[in-house]
């Protein structure tokens, strides 16, 4: 049993923490969020140079990491700094699928991903799908020696900035079935694609994307026709681990900001941190964050084994619950200041809460945990 980081991961953590600490403060972050793509292209390129995108992939794919604890370490730091860079979207989700399913030609794109010169997005969720991965109505029909896509993809993360999309579509089977889902690697500017992009409360630009008789060549297909669900599940398991770790980092910062504030804010002639009722509330926050940390460790440690889904759903459920508590308590204990955009806490509180809306909320993963037979 050893809960320490390896030397390499410790170095990864140190250098990322230093770098992000340098790049991010409230004003910069708000500026990045308000900018054209919802994040800073400069910071993105520097992250790539530091090897942070490479850390998401294993050596066979040109990276030097890619394991559960690599994701956990990296995303905890992103969360701690309140970074808004699309490592999740380009790296873990779409990049992960490309690495898992791409053929030799398709995988040449991975070099560009790791170098930071391309933005990707996974266009999978749909308006009626909510959080179900197999709910795909978008259709892919074979036509001549290619495919024709029709359908509507909802809230495609990083869909605003992406140059290339990985799109899921049903090439056979009934909506809601596990078989029949295919993936396609598509240029985001292809004819027949209509993109409506928009900001989010916590950075990046997402998009709703419509495919209207979008014609693709045969070599756009990624992996086996109709057999994409297991790879989608793996990519989402990795993405859930990543955002759980991100939420953990963000909760640590929210806690630190609140403790600092309790020590400095004076009311009734003393620091408000002297009021026992507030002390106990912070003690609970600390206890729950330690629970969240253990849940992330469980999820990272089981990412490659048969208990993966159980631990992933456990972590996502727990972090959804704890996240709400931490975000709400941090705001409440700050009073009015906690409600303002100009103060650092706002971003962290919003990010922690909105993470519950990605890849299944706390209820969704409770149901999944029960269904997996563990309860």
């Amino acid at each position, binding site marked *: 049993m050893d809960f320490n980081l390896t030397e390499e991961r410790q170095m990864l953590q140190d250098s990322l923490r230093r770098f992000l600490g340098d790049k991010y403060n409230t004003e910069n972050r708000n500026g990045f969020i308000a900018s054209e793509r919802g994040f800073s292209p400069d910071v993105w390129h520097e992250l790539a140079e530091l090897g942070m995108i490479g850390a998401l992939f294993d050596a066979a794919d040109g990276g030097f990491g890619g394991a559960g604890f690599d994701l956990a370490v990296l995303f905890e730091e992103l969360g701690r700094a309140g970074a808004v860079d699309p490592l999740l979207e380009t790296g873990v989700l779409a990049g992960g699928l490309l690495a898992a399913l791409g053929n030799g030609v398709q995988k040449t794109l991975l070099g560009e991903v790791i170098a930071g010169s391309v933005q990707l997005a996974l266009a999978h969720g749909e308006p009626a799908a*909510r959080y179900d991965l197999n709910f795909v109505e978008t259709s892919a029909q074979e036509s001549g020696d290619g495919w024709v896509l029709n359908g509507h993809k*909802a*809230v495609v993360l990083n869909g605003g900035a992406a140059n290339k999309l990985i799109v899921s579509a049903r090439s056979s089977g009934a909506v*809601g079935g596990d078989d029949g889902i295919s993936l396609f690697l598509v240029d985001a500017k292809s004819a027949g694609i209509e993109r409506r992009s928009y900001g989010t409360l916590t950075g990046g630009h997402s998009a709703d994307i419509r495919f209207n008789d979008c014609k693709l060549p045969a070599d756009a297909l990624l992996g086996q026709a109709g057999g994409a669900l297991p790879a989608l599940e793996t990519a989402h398991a990795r993405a859930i681990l990543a955002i759980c770790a991100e939420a953990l980092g963000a909760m640590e910062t929210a806690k630190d900001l609140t403790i600092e504030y309790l020590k400095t804010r004076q009311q009734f002639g003393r620091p408000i941190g002297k009021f026992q009722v507030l002390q106990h509330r912070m003690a609970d926050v600390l206890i729950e964050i330690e629970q969240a940390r253990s849940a992330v460790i469980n999820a990272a440690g089981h990412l490659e084994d048969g208990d993966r889904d159980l631990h992933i759903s456990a972590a996502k459920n727990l972090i959804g619950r704890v996240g709400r508590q931490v975000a709400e308590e941090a705001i409440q204990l700050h009073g*009015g200041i906690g409600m303002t*955009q100009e103060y650092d806490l706002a971003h962290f509180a919003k990010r922690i*809460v909105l993470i519950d809306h*990605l890849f299944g909320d706390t209820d969704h993963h409770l149901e999944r945990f029960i269904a997996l037979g563990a309860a």
Partner: protein
Amino acid sequence: MDLKFSIKEEEFRAEVRGFLDEKLPERLSEKVRLGQGLTKAEMEEWHAILNHRGWLAGNWPAQYGGAEWNAVQRHIFEEETTSAHAPRIVPFGLAMLGPVLQAFGSDAQKAHYLPRILNGDDWWCQGYSEPGAGSDLASLKTRAVREADHYIVNGQKTWTTLGQYANMIFCLVRTDTECKPQAGISFLLIDMKTPGITVRPIRLLDGSIEVNEVFFDDVKVPVENLVGEENKGWTYAKFLLTHERTNIAGVGFSNAALVALKQVARLQMSGGKPMIENPHFAARIARVEIDLMAMATTNLRVISAAARGQAPGAESSMLKVKGTVIRQEINDLTRRVMGPYAVPFTSEALEEGDNREPVGPQQAATAAPQYFNNRKLSIFGGSNEIQRTIITKAILQL
């Protein structure tokens, strides 16, 4: 025990309902239903409609142009207007300052200001809180020094709601520094156009601008703008708080929000079924509905005592804590039910003249912002921690 309203009360309800059917513009109620912000002009429009009917100031005595309703009537009005998605009445002039002037103002102040509140000539904001004085309001530092027939005011107020629209601000200021903090505070009416006043908007975490900082730099205020006696401001402020805390439970808002939540939950799908049939989500809705049903009766118990002339004391603290927690829980569920569509932040969708098709379901754009914005409910008007302290002292006597 009789849980029914009297025949007369039911008649009143029917009258209010008929009025709303006829006079509430759908343009406004639709915005309120969707959780969209109203413009200043829209708020004033609704005030004018109510004023025309004589219903703008339900809590004021008839002699000042009020409807002079008792607590039960006010409650019925609140229930009907919230469930019809009428805009809320901006409270600063009507619910807060009006009663203070009626109780403590000079004849000249009453004659000048009260009609102007009703007619919408003045937009008031509340200048109590300061950067260093929130929960500990009595520690406020904004200084007013008497010089001949003026006060010279220096200092800063903050969190001033809708101060960007206001032409008048009522302030608590320090007029004596030599005594116990509460005993050196005065209640002053200040024209926002006086030289030396600067208003700076503060953006809240949902992106909205509803609060401001107000700076006072050698601002000259005529002495006739003092309400009541010098150094008695704390007493008036406490009196005002009892008015601020009527309808503090927000049962009407919660009911309306719950109805809207159920509507969305019928439309949002999960696994091919509406969310309202999802057992976990249905349980969440049911729990908050059960809380709200009990809260409605707790609220009526306090109101009915108030209608018999018993001023609500620490009971209003109870209503505030539970009422705000329930409202916040409904906001939480409304964000939750949107699923991934809570993520887009299409602020332009909330603005005038944006004709683009909304992203996702209709209420999605406002669900997360409203959840974050309403975290304020447990912070302002005396934070929920402060309310619990009041309960501890006044009811539990611990």
